[in-house]
């Protein structure tokens, strides 16, 4: 693929988004099948209870260690959460790859614009949750 061809920018970005969605969907499907097999005929009540006094409010540990533990013990919920992580990462990857695509086109202005967007995005996702006063 010739990255200098402006036509290919649409192709590459389209593919990044498509593969992200497909990967996320496959993982979520796996988790959902697991959920159906293990809990399909349970009542929803307990799983939909929002607990305002404890974090995480849904009672599922999504810290990296907690998620990993859930994945290796085949918790259906943890696999679904992994699918969500892949889904959140999809637009981020799209912005990241756009920086390189504009660089290949030697379009400095847009390399700068997309790099700033990427920085804002990473700051917002990774840093703001731990800044006191944010999202209160």
């Amino acid at each position: 693929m010739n990255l200098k061809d402006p036509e290919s920018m649409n192709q590459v970005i389209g593919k990044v988004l498509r593969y992200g969605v497909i990967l996320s969907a496959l993982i979520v499907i796996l988790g959902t099948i697991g959920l159906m097999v293990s809990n399909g005929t349970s009542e929803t009540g307990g799983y939909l209870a929002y607990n305002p006094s404890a974090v995480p409010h849904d009672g599922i540990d999504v810290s990296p260690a907690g998620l990993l533990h859930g994945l290796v013990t085949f918790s259906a919920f943890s696999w679904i959460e992994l699918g969500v992580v892949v889904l959140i990462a999809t637009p981020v990857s799209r912005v990241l790859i756009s920086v390189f695509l504009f660089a290949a086109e030697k379009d400095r202005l847009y390399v700068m614009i997309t790099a700033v967007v990427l920085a804002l995005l990473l700051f917002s996702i990774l840093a703001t949750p731990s800044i006191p006063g944010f999202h209160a």
Partner: protein
Amino acid sequence: MFVADFVLLMFLVSIFAGIFGSIAGLGGGIVVIPVLTILLGVDIHFAIGASIVAIIGTSSGAASTYVKDKVTNLRVGMFLELASASGAIIGAAVAAYTNSAALEFIFGCILLITLVPMVMKIGEEIPKSPELKGLSKRLGLKGSYTETDGRIINYNSTRPVEGLAGTLVAGILSGLLGIGGGAFKVLSMDLAMKLPMKVSTTTSNFMIGVTAAASAGIYFARGDVDPLIVAPVALGIFIGAALGARILLRSRNTTIRKAFAVVLAIAALEMILSAAGVLP
């Protein structure tokens, strides 16, 4: 209700949400939130967490088709993302100091007012293309796409600063309330920048995934993204977005404007009723 029934119901609702969200450029949140809170009695925090997943899913699912077919204007999208991403951070920073009911009421009313210029342009297929000059020219904010009947539509854009300002408001709303962002993005591109309707809704669709991802970290870490809810939502949204993208590409701009006006009215009413305490 059994888990299996809940999953099936939310899956079907989300297909519908994905179709409308991908055509109007707002994401599937405005359908998913009221179904969860009003019909199923789910807590609003879980509903907003599901809405974030629905928005990223609609955006990425439909954008892969829109971008490949070159209806989305990548440069317009990435330029405006400067404002929407900054806005999302500003919204998150000031959320603690604002009255969200008052904000919802004000912005719900603004959206209702924007219905007027929307409806006045209801028969417009392609806007008269402005001259490309100044900042728009320097930023290359022009494009062309091919209609299904083979016509090639060339267009320019205008008033990039107004577009940027409108998108900043969109980002702030997303960061503050988790809703309303997509509507202001479409309105900025349509009313200020004079882009064809299809370009406006598909470029908004392209951007909303990034804005939603910006806020996703906090909702995810807090445990507002409940797996039982988001699993059927994500899967339904993917299917709905793929269907919606096919429908949009075959539709006339006038049809998309009508669909957007309807969704805009619903979004405005949801915000006003929620502010009034009628909706959760």
